């Protein structure tokens, strides 16, 4: 459905008045993946790893410097669900207009159809259908995120990009929203790109999980495989520090060394070199490619396996 090849995005830094430097932030450094229909690709990584830049590059909000984005069929619609439902709804618009806006933008309906379509969408996302004339401030965070989801699915998109869709919600609300996303995927045959920093949530929601670090995909596998056989030292680190109820993991005793890489002055070798407990000499000089390991559906970019 979606094939992304070698996507690169570098943000230029504003040069000072007297400097002619052309420094840039290396946000995406060649990312490739494919997304099948009705599939969920999970993307997990920490802040600055390029996961949001990837989403914005795919949608063309931040056009990539190089690389290819191929949609099949080419007229597949894409939509976006943002992290913070308090910032992503226009406070001056009624909910019925917000939720049907993509349909009107795509000329799927006329103004006359708005109330009817709004009722249908509100019901679909689990809100009372007569709430269309309310304004965003009358809703709680979870309800707002339902409106955002309703808006995203209204124009019958093939792909919805969910960028941290639950991380600003209360704990008791998060699972409602995750279940709603799964339910809508079943009903409407949507593919998701599901981006989050919480590896537990990504493992739960996805069919394939890609782990990102410093603008690279460092490992990619099914969630079951990634969880039981993590290959990349960074994936292992992520799994070792994610809080987990009932496992007595004592994450506060984990030894974590090194600093996050400087995305402006990138070193030539593996970006994880500085924090990797397993590093070898080659890791400092050359970047490992993402390659399948023993199993064809489990790829990893690490010199330990190449």
């Amino acid at each position, binding site marked *: 459905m979606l094939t992304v090849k070698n996507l690169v995005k570098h943000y230029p830094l504003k040069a000072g008045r007297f400097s002619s430097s052309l420094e840039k932030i290396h946000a995406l450094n060649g990312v490739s993946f494919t997304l099948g229909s009705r599939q969920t690709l999970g993307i997990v990584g*920490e*802040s600055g790893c390029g996961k949001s830049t990837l989403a914005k590059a795919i949608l063309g909000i931040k056009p990539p410097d190089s690389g290819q984005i191929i949609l099949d069929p080419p007229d597949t619609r894409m939509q976006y669900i943002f992290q913070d439902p308090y910032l992503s709804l226009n406070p001056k618009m009624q909910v019925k207009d917000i939720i049907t806006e993509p349909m009107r933008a795509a000329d799927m309906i006329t103004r006359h159809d708005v109330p009817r379509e709004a009722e249908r969408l509100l019901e679909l996302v689990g809100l009372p259908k007569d709430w269309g004339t309310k304004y965003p401030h009358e809703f*709680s*965070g*979870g*309800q707002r995120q339902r409106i955002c989801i309703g808006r995203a699915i209204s124009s019958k998109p093939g792909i919805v990009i969910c960028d941290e869709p639950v991380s600003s919600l*209360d*704990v*008791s*609300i*998060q*699972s*409602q929203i*995750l*279940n709603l996303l*799964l339910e809508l995927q079943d009903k409407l045959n949507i593919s998701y790109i599901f981006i989050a*920093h*919480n*590896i*537990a*949530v990504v*493992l*739960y*929601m996805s069919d394939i999980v890609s782990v990102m670090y410093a603008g690279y995909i460092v490992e990619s596998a099914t*969630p*079951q495989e990634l*969880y039981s056989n993590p290959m990349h030292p960074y994936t292992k*680190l*992520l*799994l070792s*520090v*994610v*809080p*987990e*109820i*009932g496992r*007595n*993991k*004592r*994450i*506060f*005793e*984990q030894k*974590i060394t090194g*600093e*996050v890489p400087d995305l402006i002055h990138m070193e030539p070798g593996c970006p994880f070199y500085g924090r990797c407990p397993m590093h070898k000499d080659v890791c400092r000089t050359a970047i490992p490619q993402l390659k399948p390991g023993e199993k064809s559906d489990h790829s990893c970019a690490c010199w330990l396996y190449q």
Partner: protein
Amino acid sequence: MKEKILEIKNLTTRFHMVDRDITAVDSLSFDLGSHEILAIIGESGSGKSVTNLSIMKLIDEPGEISAESRILFRDGDKYLDLNKLSEKEMERIRGDRISMIFQEPSASFNPLFRLGSQVGESLHLHGKRNKEEAYHEALKLLAQVHIPNFSLRAQDYPFQMSGGMLQRMMIAQALACHPDILIADEPTTALDVTTQAQILGLLKEKQKETGMSVIFITHDLALVEDFCDRILILYAGSLMEEGNARDVISNPMHPYTRDLLRSIPKPGMFKDKDKLFAIPGKVPDPGEKIEGCPYAKRCTGCTAECLAKKPDITEKDGRKVRCFHAYS
């Protein structure tokens, strides 16, 4: 429990709004032992942050800590009621005997001053050191929280630091006067998981070294199980459950605690085989009139009794629970 450093009795904090009163914390009682790490867990509107601002008496108009609230803080062999102290007397306690760290370290430092002077500031303010000595002390503190190149970093401004490094700086600042109690309000929520693990490690290390007590506020139940000694679970301003951390997590007595535990996805759960439990409804709005149990409307075991009357807290074997139908 070991000796108590802090005893909270019937703490009630209200906000008098134009059209209604909001009871943010509703007659909450709990103790904090010395050398203890106590977790306060709650969602938005649970009153967890207001509880701690009340302990520090940082509640401004239109908020009010009710007169019958007791905040007993041990001072030598007697107890001081912080609720009865004047603002002048409280100033001597804040930052010295009780200090705080916050969720967003970049919002908690003054952007216009170098970090070194801010970290040592409380030593100077409390009259323990002059400015120059305070700066030298700050350098020592930065070394103790493992900041690389600390004497150079002390010259930096807040915007030059990463979130994790700033949070270390804030911990150094809070520890400057050797407080008896450190209140940490969601100290790792804004950080990455790897940084979170490092900061938790640092807090644990400092708590062991200094023997201080810690109140650790978070919304994340998964964090506290092995990090904290005891847990309080708050919901809509009321205490729902209290007990030893491990007991509460492995054997929750309140339906709310159990539902929360069931609704958090754990690594190793996959959509094909595990159904995620979702708590219906939403957190009550601030100021919403609640007759019965605050959780009744979302609870699967709700009965007529739960809707009519707010259950009292029952206590058994060091566990407290507020529910008519508590699990045993």
